[in-house]
């Protein structure tokens, strides 16, 4: 005998100073910000407050993307297709939803698609579509 159920886990995520600037830029300017380390010049996107190479605080935010290159992807049936996207100008990759194509390959050029209604969440980027489909 198998029982199926679900537990709802409500919680609240505080984005912090740099994370808030990242989310506000998505919402208000439809731009994607990375954080540039003053010591090693690594640009981390999405922007975060510390450089993971140097463990130093990072304050300089720079615009990256909205185009990028797909590094890897996975299909989660019933949930969607998710990709690891290396945004142009960034040195790290971010995870987001892939939409509008079914021919994903490592190296596929992708482009961010912003949501019409934006509220300061990572889902203000609706997803990434293959660059050929975005025109």
């Amino acid at each position, binding site marked *: *005998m*198998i*029982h*199926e*159920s*679900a*537990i*709802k*886990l*409500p*919680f*609240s*995520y*505080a*984005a*912090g*100073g740099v*994370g*808030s*600037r990242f*989310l*506000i830029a998505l919402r208000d300017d439809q731009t994607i910000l990375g954080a540039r380390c003053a010591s090693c010049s690594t640009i981390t996107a999405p922007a975060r407050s510390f450089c993971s190479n140097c463990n130093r605080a990072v304050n300089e935010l720079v615009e990256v993307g909205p185009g990028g290159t797909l590094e890897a992807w996975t299909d989660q049936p019933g949930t969607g297709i998710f990709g690891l996207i290396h945004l142009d100008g960034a040195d790290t990759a971010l995870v987001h939803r892939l939409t509008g194509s079914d021919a994903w390959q490592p190296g596929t050029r992708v482009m961010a698609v912003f949501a019409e209604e934006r509220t*300061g*969440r990572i889902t203000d980027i609706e997803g990434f579509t293959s660059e050929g489909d975005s025109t």
Partner: protein
Amino acid sequence: MSDQQPEYIRTTIELNVSWRYASGDPMERFLRGIEQRRIEAIRCPKCGRRYLPPRPFCGRCKVRMDEWEPVQDTGTLVAWTVIHLPIIDGRTGEPRPSPYGMGLIQLDGADTTLNHYLDTANPDHLTIGARVRAVWRDELHGAMDDIMHFEVLP
């Protein structure tokens, strides 16, 4: 620089964690009985201890159990509490409306206690040793919540 306070973002998120619980043979038999409004305890062939809810092995003798005995839907309240800050109810996935009572109930014919909800309409009646009875749903579907809660007998 602007003299305004910077805006900080706080996002509320609700995760839905789904799960599947395989009941195992003894619990399956127990729940099939519940579906018929019949409660049974599993009995250790060695020491005779009657477990409710059932389990495959006797916790004392470490031997497999497969003998069953009928148990009444009345029993004795061994411990109780009234919960005002609810935890998530695993059966529904949502916090149970509070306050609500929980008790350890030793049903007549069992040697162990069952953890279940208590009717708190008259919280003054909740005492250790109180006699209680199961309040069943009208439509049974073979799950622990076929018993909605236990009420204190007058």
